[in-house]
């Protein structure tokens, strides 16, 4: 058994390169989707991963779940890399780590009833224990996500997006997971429904002690639920730290931009962030990738990738300018 104080999930120096061909016989122009990212998730912790569309969040989540091959780096779940797990460990990993996807419409098999959907994980892991006991488990899971058992015989298309996402969550809960990776689990939902589902996640963490990797492109939504947040930009983690510290004094201009593009964290979650990646933007070749959009760029930013700087409290940033003081929405408030 792994050390209980060690992180549940420990991702080290993960790199993912997609080979890209230009034209039919074109020379390979590799695309770096993840560039040497590292983060940890403690037991029962909520880690937010935020960044605009295309920054590599899903790639990171899927590699952590071992449903996407990586180029290099390590993923340690309870100290063991899924890549080197034996059959038994792998089974346990598939049970203890669950994923929720962005599109609640696409992630449920349209041909199955809710009952069949929820029974699937039990069957996959040989956890069936007779019809009555199984049914009790199904009802309990539905109850946890706030759905009545009368829905068991319905098909996914009969539900709203928010309800479907609850069904997805209930299905993940069937296996008693220690970790749930929620990839944009609320992004496709209406704003009011988003808040309800975020509350459900917080409730689950509170009641069941589940660790959550909460991926979204919307920093305020992520701020509501996360203990710590990793901000991604173009395949790199540019800032990682405790939510309060980040919302008080963001250390990276990109984080500041995400914060100003949105209302304060304790107000209602906002809609999708306006600022998206322009299609063909020079990536600040050689220097800081954020340089073309950075209001604080200096000459030094053009020479070499900014190194990762460790600050107090485990906070880290990949911005050169350590003297920069940017006020976040929580600045001036002594305490949250």
């Amino acid at each position, binding site marked *: 058994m792994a050390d209980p104080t060690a992180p549940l999930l420990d991702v080290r120096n993960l790199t993912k390169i997609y080979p890209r061909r230009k034209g039919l016989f074109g020379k390979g122009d590799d695309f770096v989707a993840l560039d040497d990212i590292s983060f940890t998730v403690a037991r029962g912790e909520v880690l937010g991963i935020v960044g605009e569309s295309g920054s590599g969040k899903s790639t990171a989540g899927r590699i952590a779940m071992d*449903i996407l091959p990586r180029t290099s780096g390590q993923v340690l779940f309870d100290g063991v890399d899924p890549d080197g797990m034996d059959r038994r460990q792998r089974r346990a990993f598939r049970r203890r780590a669950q994923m929720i996807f962005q599109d609640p419409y696409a992630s449920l098999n349209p041909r199955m009833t809710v009952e069949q959907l929820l029974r*699937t994980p039990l069957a996959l892991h040989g956890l069936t224990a007779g019809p009555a006991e199984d049914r009790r488990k199904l009802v309990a899971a539905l109850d946890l996500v706030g759905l009545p058992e009368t829905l068991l015989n319905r098909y996914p298309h009969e539900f709203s997006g928010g309800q479907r996402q609850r069904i997805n969550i209930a299905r993940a809960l069937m296996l008693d997971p220690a970790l749930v990776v929620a990839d944009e689990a609320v992004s496709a939902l209406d704003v009011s429904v988003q808040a309800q589902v975020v509350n459900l996640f917080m409730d689950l963490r509170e009641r069941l002690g589940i660790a959550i990797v909460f991926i979204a492109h919307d920093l305020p939504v992520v701020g509501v639920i996360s203990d710590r947040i990793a901000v991604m930009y173009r395949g790199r983690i540019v800032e990682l730290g405790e939510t309060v510290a980040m919302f008080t004094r963001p250390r990276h201009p990109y984080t500041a931009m995400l914060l100003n593009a949105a209302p304060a964290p304790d107000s209602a979650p906002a809609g999708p962030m306006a600022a998206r990646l322009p299609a063909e933007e020079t990536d600040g070749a050689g220097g800081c990738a954020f340089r073309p959009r950075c209001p604080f760029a200096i000459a030094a930013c053009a020479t070499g990738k900014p190194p990762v700087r460790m600050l107090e409290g485990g906070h880290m940033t990949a911005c050169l300018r350590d003297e920069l003081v940017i006020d976040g929405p929580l600045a001036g408030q002594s305490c949250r």
Partner: protein
Amino acid sequence: MHTFRRLMKIRTASAGLVMVAVLAVACTLLPPLLPYDPLEIDLHHRFLPPLSGGHVLGTDEIGRDTLVRLLAGARTSLLIGLSAMVLSTVTGCLTGGLTGFHGGWTRRVLMRIVDSVLCFPTIFLLLTLASFGQPGAPTIVGIVSLVAWMEVSRVVDGQVRALRGREFVIAVEAMGASGVHMLLRELLPNITGAIIVVSTLNVARAILMEAYVSYLGNGIQPPQPSLGAMLNDAQEYLRPDPWLAILPGLVIAIAVIGLNFVGDGLRLAVDPRQGRRA
């Protein structure tokens, strides 16, 4: 259920379904009620025209009852069509499912073979193969399936490939589902519509193929009745007794057209979006 209701709204499809159903019911239920045997020769009553001498559809050149022979022939045709369909559907689902799921070089090789075989006119292939085999129903089923499974395989391969990366499949993969589970429980149930469409059309094709092969003498052997062989026999007497050719032709047409109507209707009923585009 929705699909069936949509199917019945398509006029040609419901007509086709009635044609096939009437034929199937007639050739299962009617023969025991008729006082003749399909092999019973009656040289005193040859070439009776329809509705004469107690024979509803007349008799042939050796006095056998045409109606009974037609029904028996149609039954053989339908059985051959169904067996070939089952065989080709199972083979096609397995191969197409595997190649669509795994991709890679197996897929490239198999699909290349399928493509090159399917671009030959099927009938020549069929006749060549038939001339090697022992004539009879099992051989015809085998030969027809040998071609028909490829159609199924190609359809299943394409559909499985399209669905393989969908989130509901990835979702169960992340829960530890095996390839077999993903294929059988998640993917195939979502493409039954497309499979039923090709399979229905394959029944029609098999019936037509049986008729061709038997007509040319390599299929069902006399004295067993077969629609194709009856057509061949009738050739000699075309001038004085045309109904001997017209009747089996009509039965073939009813079966094949009916099944095609149903198949085409299903194509629309299974995927309503396609219907709007058409």
